[in-house]
């Protein structure tokens, strides 16, 4: 087990380095980042001075070594446009995104579990049909469009909810609902199919033969096993939330990571884009690592197969 964890840790680390290298050189391949902040009436000397200030006069290899050195000390460099440390800018935006993600995760999970179990328990009933239809609709309609239509209906026409801002709890309703929309349909389908698999298994039949009430069979015996599959795709949920945050924050003008990412993409402020990518990569890799380790802990077969 220790060997397995060490190998997986090493692999994740190598993957992280790989992503960092990819990001670093991809961004620099785009051309001179200074062309955006340099004013046209700068003299050549001034331009060179700015270039030296940012360390862009050195070769790519040297720049990379300096960047990696800083990175290991937790320093993501400075924003070219705002001239402030990147980590501070991200630190300001991150809590706002978490305020969306955390409630969306719990509400979305709860709804997906309830509806998924309902659909699986009463298979082919009118409930099942309805929930399946919802899932199909949810996976086909673009999230950004649904959010805009929700604004049209609830804010513009009915005037119930505010369009943008984050002052009162009612400001949270539409953004959080949008985030829920991004993860729920897929999750619901997953819960349903995993629940159907479990309900088909021998031990559930045994539980029924024993004469346990259906309530206990579903909520105690089946649910505990059916919930494992949806939890193993936490990495996927995280990826959906990143996409969701970018879109939701753009639509509702929410000052979080997603909006920051869109803004810095347009201003080509590559230090920030680079930092966000690396931070997300760290998150993704750690989630995968945790899932893998807990899997290997439960199922010894994986331990030997993979290492």
């Amino acid at each position, binding site marked *: 087990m220790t060997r397995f964890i060490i190998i997986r840790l090493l692999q994740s680390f190598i993957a992280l380095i790989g992503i960092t290298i990819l990001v670093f050189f*991809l961004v620099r391949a785009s051309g001179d980042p200074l062309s955006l902040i340099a004013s046209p009436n700068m003299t050549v000397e001034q331009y060179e001075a700015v270039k030296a200030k940012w360390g862009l006069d050195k070769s790519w290899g040297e720049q990379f070594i300096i960047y990696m050195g800083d990175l290991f000390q937790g320093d993501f460099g400075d924003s070219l446009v705002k001239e402030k440390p990147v980590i501070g800018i991200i630190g300001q935006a991150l809590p706002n995104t978490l305020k969306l993600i955390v409630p969306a995760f719990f509400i979305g999970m709860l709804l997906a579990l309830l509806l998924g179990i309902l659909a699986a328990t009463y298979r082919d009933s009118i409930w099942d049909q309805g929930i399946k239809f919802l899932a199909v*609709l949810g996976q*086909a309609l673009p999230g950004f469009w649904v959010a805009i239509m929700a604004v049209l209906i609830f804010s513009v026409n009915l005037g119930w909810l505010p369009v943008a801002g984050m002052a009162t709890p009612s400001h949270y309703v539409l953004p959080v609902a949008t985030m829920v929309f991004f993860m729920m349909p897929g999750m619901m389908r997953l819960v349903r199919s995993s629940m159907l698999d479990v309900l088909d298994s021998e031990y559930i039949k045994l539980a029924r033969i024993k004469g346990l009430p259906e309530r206990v069979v579903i909520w105690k015996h089946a649910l505990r096993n059916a919930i494992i599959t949806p939890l193993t795709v936490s990495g996927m949920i995280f*990826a959906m939330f*990143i996409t969701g945050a970018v879109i939701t924050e753009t639509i509702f003008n929410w000052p979080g990571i997603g909006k920051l990412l869109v803004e810095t*993409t347009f201003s080509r402020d*590559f230090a920030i884009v680079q930092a*966000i990518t690396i931070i997300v990569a760290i998150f993704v890799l750690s989630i995968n690592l945790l899932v893998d380790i807990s899997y290997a802990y439960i199922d010894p077969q994986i331990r030997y197969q993979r290492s």
Partner: protein
Amino acid sequence: MPDTTEEKPKKKFTGLPLRARVIRKLSLIIPLIIMFLVVIMAVFADLSWLGLPNVRLSPHDPDDVVIRDRFLPPAFMDGGKSEYLLGTDKLGRDVLSRIIYGSRISLSISALVISITACIGTVLGIFAGYAGGRIDGFIMRVTDVALSFPGLLMAMLLAVAIQPGYWTVVFALSILGWAPYARLLRGEALKIRDSDFVAQARVCGASPWRIMLRHIFPNVINSLVVMITLSVGMVILAEAVLSFLGIGVPAPTASWGSMVNDGRGYLDTAWWISAFPGIAIGLVVMSGNFLGDWLRDKLDPRLRQL
């Protein structure tokens, strides 16, 4: 079994209620019709590719700016003109024509992206599954990372690195998109590798390349076709997200995602600018998913979880 009882289970099996049978038929026919119409729309939007620029399906030029006619509601509403069936946008451009031209972007990008990703994923997947060992381990690790890395983030990074544009979108959607193919086909190849006919081919002296190409590949085509159909919707959605955020195909080229974004500022006065392109995306993606589901049930029912 006696003859009399043989009839009974047969009848029970084919005797789905009429309503269910009709729904099942419709859920195949309607998506097929929608897909067919969209392809027709994209191909015959105009015939300039045949040297006939004046023969066109779209009622207007998608980029024709008629300031006099801006913000006109759809024809079925008060104040709408019959020449603008779905209304006009802030520059007086015809929404319907832009939707028709937008289908070209959606379809051509998804066709390109799917061809690229399916090829790369198939090659990597079959190779990993057949080779096994360290090669398999390495390819699957890379696949794992590619699978869980948010595609949108990668696309934004590329939009920073290269300028946004048609080929940037294709590249951005392809760079991670091969991973699901690789994982699926690797699993399939792994199963087939250990089957008897592959062992026999090996005994007969077939080279590994020949086995992969002539013995394994034909046996994974079903899964591949199902996966390709199911990814049509995903790629169209992903392209729409990119153009919605302004990092897709640059303006003024009409694309469905950027049209939704165009109308965002005029929701209170001109909802139709955003509403109709979104419906177009939803219809096409849903049709793609329905066809994919149907094909999967026909060709490869084992792939239920896809």
